[in-house]
């Protein structure tokens, strides 16, 4: 596994074979491609968390997805305007760029340290799997004591891309996140299925 440096990133971005190309689109400026990462901008769509009027969120509840969807309010903030993120406020944003990794590459999303020093944490789900296609959801939390105005279009994160030892033949089709173009709310269908199994395991253990 090797971190791609500037020249390798440019080569991957301009690969003529679409199936092998690293796609980061639209790239507004050449200098977004740095020494060993690509700067990513903040997109225009946000999901703001709000206090639920339900009892809470329970992944074991059949109505879990509805509970989750009830938690978010979608906000569109056009370029040229801003969104205030208050202390301790959590929001989902998305990268302005649409990213697609070929099966030979993986990546990590990292917050830019300049924002981090203001208390803004940008991403926690940092790994991007080979074959991913879509805008990257950013988990934004203001850990500082001052509200921060978020401007779509500003660079907010960076994508560090690495090669794999070998091209993966394993592709995990995940229709719930197919080519998203905005922030994606939590989808825990897999965890819900796992919980069913864990519950059965618990029942069997209780009977012992």
């Amino acid at each position, binding site marked *: 596994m090797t971190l791609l440096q500037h020249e390798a990133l440019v080569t991957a971005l*301009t690969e*003529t074979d*679409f*199936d092998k190309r690293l*796609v980061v*689109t*639209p*790239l*507004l400026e050449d200098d977004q491609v740095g020494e060993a990462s690509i700067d990513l901008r903040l997109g*225009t769509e946000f999901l703001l968390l709000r206090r639920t009027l339900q009892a809470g969120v329970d992944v074991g509840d059949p109505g879990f997805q509805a509970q989750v969807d009830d938690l978010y309010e979608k906000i*569109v903030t*056009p*370029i040229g305007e801003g969104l205030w993120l208050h202390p301790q406020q959590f929001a989902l944003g998305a990268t*302005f760029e*649409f990213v*697609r990794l070929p099966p030979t590459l993986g990546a990590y999303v990292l917050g830019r340290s300049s924002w981090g020093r203001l208390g803004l944490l940008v991403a926690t789900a940092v790994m991007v799997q080979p074959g991913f*296609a879509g*805008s990257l959801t950013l988990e934004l939390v203001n850990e500082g004591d001052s509200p921060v105005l978020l401007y779509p*279009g500003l660079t907010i994160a960076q994508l560090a891309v690495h090669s794999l030892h070998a091209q993966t033949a394993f592709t995990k089709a995940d229709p719930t996140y*197919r*080519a998203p*173009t*905005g922030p994606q709310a939590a989808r825990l269908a897999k965890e819900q299925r796992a919980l069913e199994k864990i519950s059965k395991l618990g029942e069997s253990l209780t009977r012992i």
Partner: protein
Amino acid sequence: MATDAARDFALLAATARRSIDDLRRAVHAAPPPRGRRGEHFLTVVEAALGALEAGVADREAEFASAADEQEQRAVIRSMRRINYDVMGLHEVSPWIESARGSKLALGLVYFVDELVFALLKAPADVVMTPSGTYMYSTIHKPFEDPLTNLGVAYPAAVLPIIVSYPVHEPDSLFLHLIIAHELGHSAIAEHNLDQEVYRRDPNPTGTRDTLSQAVAEYLTQEGGTPAAARGRLRVILRHWLAELICDALAVGFLGPSYLLTAAAFGAPFDGPEPSETHPPLTLRTHLLIERLTSWGWIPLLQAGMPETFAWMLETSTRPQQAAHRTYFLRLEEAIRNLSKTIEDVVSAHLGADLFQLDAHASNADELSALLERDILPAQLLDRSPASRRSIILSGWMHAFAKHGDQPVALASIVGDRDQQRFLTKALEMSVVLERWATL
């Protein structure tokens, strides 16, 4: 002690003022969108409220100086008309909400701006508002008539236009292309395109003769006087011509995408039957295909969706079902004779904004390759922004490849909201990229 008339008038005036205050509060419920979409429309609403308020004050003065109860009753009738106007103004409440912020995706909002410049040749303040009625409609220059009647000059520096769309279709990009047709109505109003068609009619005598024949048939079938029949038929012809100019503008700007949209939206409801406001869909389809033939698009449709296009071609040749009202057939004759003139007027009006096959063809393969791989088709390999119209057309082509080349696929394509959200995001990104390059 107050008279009955005084009590009646007091109630009417108080109700008008209360209602005006309610509407004004709705306008002021949020900071005014200075320099943004909706600003000019809200200026007009404020002017309308101000004019109505002045009308109430005038009636109050008139009532106070009325010489007798008969005069007072006349003022009450006048006051009641104002109350009806105020009541009518409540219709704009959802528009006020929409003027503050559209629920539509940015890509569509930006694309509508592009449509406005191409069709109206000037900026306009387009407020897009959801409607419970399943149709698209346009209100050009809202409140122009009431303001004129109240003696108030139209206050907006930039033309406001209200476009309604079906409330449950916010993400249906393919259907929203009907907005191009709707904005065509404003283009006609602003540029007198219908008059231009009549002015350029190469055979005005023939058109008059056809209309005279229609009048004769109308009198036989419907009765009435020749003058009334001629007037009514002229109105119908004007409506039909407007619809067909709007169709031509939309297909001129959007190319085959508009034909597909018109079929997806119109075919489930309309067929070969005419109405007084709209020509039969079959005739409209025929004329759209005529335009696309002139502009060289047919091979692309035949290659991309041969079955669906063959169906459209077949439906476009079905005769008009006018039943006993044969005067509609004469109107169709008149329209068909004006068809080439409509095309010429629209071509001249669109100018460089006419969608050219060559411009699309140069990007089509790359956009198709991007869509096949679920890559956002916003930026081409040479880093330039993809043309919005090519993104949409490529999206249609891709959708037929995905959903199958059959007329029934039009329903599933329009129902594929994920695909349309994807394309709409590409429109947004393409616009941002294009503007960025000019900075």
